[in-house]
């Protein structure tokens, strides 16, 4: 069924309510497309066709009864770090290969309550650690625009599912760019909310002071629908913040006349792909023609973001991943040489190379004598990075940058050099360290036909400005209507 090609969440909602299509038909179309395209794309670790069809039947009943909640009957992909009750949830790791989630993450529960249909658990880098999806314990997802290239990571499968229309939307998580970078590489919209905006309860932890759940979607309005469904305070997450959640999708059309937007000079660096810089500069002109006032600004501590991030994230990861020891759930490897040996054999067999590397780096950074030099130092640098943004936001309502220094790279091209891979996150990481909302949306294609992403950042809890700015730009272009041929 080619119907999915033409559908957004917004359009599907209308047609479902008008009874022009049923939730079951939509679910079947998504499942057929998944079956047809998965051999090339591998966007899913665990497709969930039975669950999807059951949820679709329930959605059809609610639609027939005139009692349809916001996302009733909408097929979605859920990143496999988000717990979904009764469904295998692996975090992309072999250490959780047979783990069946005993409860729902709050975000999964909210989507279920909103009537959504879960077509599968999306592929990702192991424990969300990676920028290419190549660290998945189940093999990489591939970019639908060119299957020889990475889709980005860590929420690569979520981005691929949306970009290739295997689902109408997806949830991902973003610790250092893991929603925005794959969204940019896959030609879709991805939004990382303000830290504390969305509950992390039931989300398998990587770096707890940075992790945040957010939507991936074909366009800005769809992202707004997903965000307003999952956002809001959750008593089960003590870091979630009690701030009212606006009805984003209703307020997208405010326009950007007179809006002051900062363009930070540190985000146009040597070594970046010229076509990316050109596309972003063209987007700047476009925003100016829409009435925005764009001014050059500086975020002087940008060059320190990658080291600060990789010290904080790995330190927190080394602590968070201590729980995978073969005792209570997940893999156990026991050769009969006692408890310590069981821990070590289990972790040695269950974790992949990048996860081991980050645990090692983080353990070192937290080990006796080094805490002040590394973790505490990085937390202080985080304050300096946050102050850079505060200074710009005293004058500007939004900041725009490229999402990534290059478009999607070839599979295998960076996997042997961890530091080079880490540097591919250079434009997204500061936003996590400062806890800000950030969105990537398509702003062009390079000469290889690969999508380019524009990043929009705003003040804490001001997702509305991010979405309104993105919407104004999107409505004046047709990048978001381009689809890969799959």
């Amino acid at each position, binding site marked *: 069924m080619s119907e999915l090609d033409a559908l957004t969440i917004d359009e599907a909602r209308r047609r479902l309510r008008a009874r022009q299509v049923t939730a079951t038909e939509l679910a079947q179309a998504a499942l057929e497309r998944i079956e047809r395209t998965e051999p090339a794309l591998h966007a899913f670790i665990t497709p969930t066709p039975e669950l999807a069809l059951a949820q679709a039947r329930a959605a059809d009943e609610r639609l027939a009864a005139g009692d349809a909640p916001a996302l009733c009957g909408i097929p979605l992909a859920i990143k496999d770090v988000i717990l979904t009750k009764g469904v295998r949830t692996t975090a992309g790791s072999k250490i959780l290969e047979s783990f069946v989630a005993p409860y729902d993450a709050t975000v999964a529960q909210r989507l279920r309550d909103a009537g959504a249909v879960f077509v599968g658990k999306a592929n990702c880098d192991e424990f969300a650690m990676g920028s290419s999806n190549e660290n998945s314990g189940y093999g990489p997802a591939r970019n639908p625009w060119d299957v020889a290239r990475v889709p980005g990571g860590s929420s690569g499968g979520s981005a691929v599912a949306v970009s290739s229309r295997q689902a109408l939307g997806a949830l991902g998580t973003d610790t250092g760019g893991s929603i925005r970078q794959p969204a940019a590489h896959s030609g879709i919209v991805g939004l990382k909310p303000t830290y504390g905006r969305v509950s992390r309860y039931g989300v398998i932890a990587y770096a707890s002071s940075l992790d945040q759940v957010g939507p991936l979607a074909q366009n800005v309005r769809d992202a707004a629908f997903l965000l307003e469904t999952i956002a809001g305070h959750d008593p089960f997450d003590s*870091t979630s913040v009690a701030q009212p959640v606006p009805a984003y999708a209703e307020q997208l059309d405010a326009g950007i006349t007179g809006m002051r937007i900062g363009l930070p000079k540190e985000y146009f660096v040597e070594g970046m792909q010229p076509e990316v810089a050109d596309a972003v500069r063209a987007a700047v002109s476009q925003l100016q023609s829409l009435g925005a006032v764009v001014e050059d600004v500086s975020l002087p501590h940008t060059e320190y973001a990658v080291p600060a991030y990789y010290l904080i994230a790995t330190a927190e990861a080394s602590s968070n991943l201590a729980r995978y020891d073969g005792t209570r759930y997940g893999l156990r490897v026991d050769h009969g040489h006692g408890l310590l040996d069981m821990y*070590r054999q289990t972790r040695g067999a269950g974790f992949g190379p990048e996860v081991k590397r980050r645990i090692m780096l983080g353990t070192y950074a937290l080990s006796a004598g080094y805490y002040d030099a590394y973790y505490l130092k990085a937390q202080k640098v985080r304050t300096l990075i946050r102050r850079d943004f505060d200074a710009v936001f005293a004058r500007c309502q939004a900041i725009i940058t490229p999402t990534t220094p290059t478009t999607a790279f070839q599979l295998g091209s960076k996997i042997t050099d961890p*530091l080079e891979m880490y540097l591919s996150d250079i434009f997204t990481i500061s936003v996590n360290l400062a806890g800000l909302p950030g969105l990537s949306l398509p702003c062009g294609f390079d000469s290889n036909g690969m999508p380019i992403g524009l990043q929009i950042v705003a003040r804490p809890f001001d997702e509305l400005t991010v979405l309104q700015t993105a919407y104004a730009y999107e409505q004046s272009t047709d990048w978001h209507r381009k689809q890969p041929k799959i």
Partner: protein
Amino acid sequence: MAITRDDVRHIALLARLPLSADEETALTEQLDHILAHFQRLDDLDTDAVEPTAHIAPMATPFRDDVVTNPPDPEAWLANSPNHDGRFFKVPKIIE
């Protein structure tokens, strides 16, 4: 600051990771390279800077001390690699 192979072995023990000789070699080199790049943080004088953990000003939230998620031992044991009744089983710790 150079990372030595002995450092890597020590950290691997703390992290409960068994490393092959090849992994020790690779990680010694990689961690050294990564940390050398990260040394640039020392350029910054942060003596008077407070660390940031959460961007919103938050105090620890409190709630009443009542059970909100009823215990369901069967569900929690369902994923366990080895259990006996309502107990997780592990290898003997004390001889």
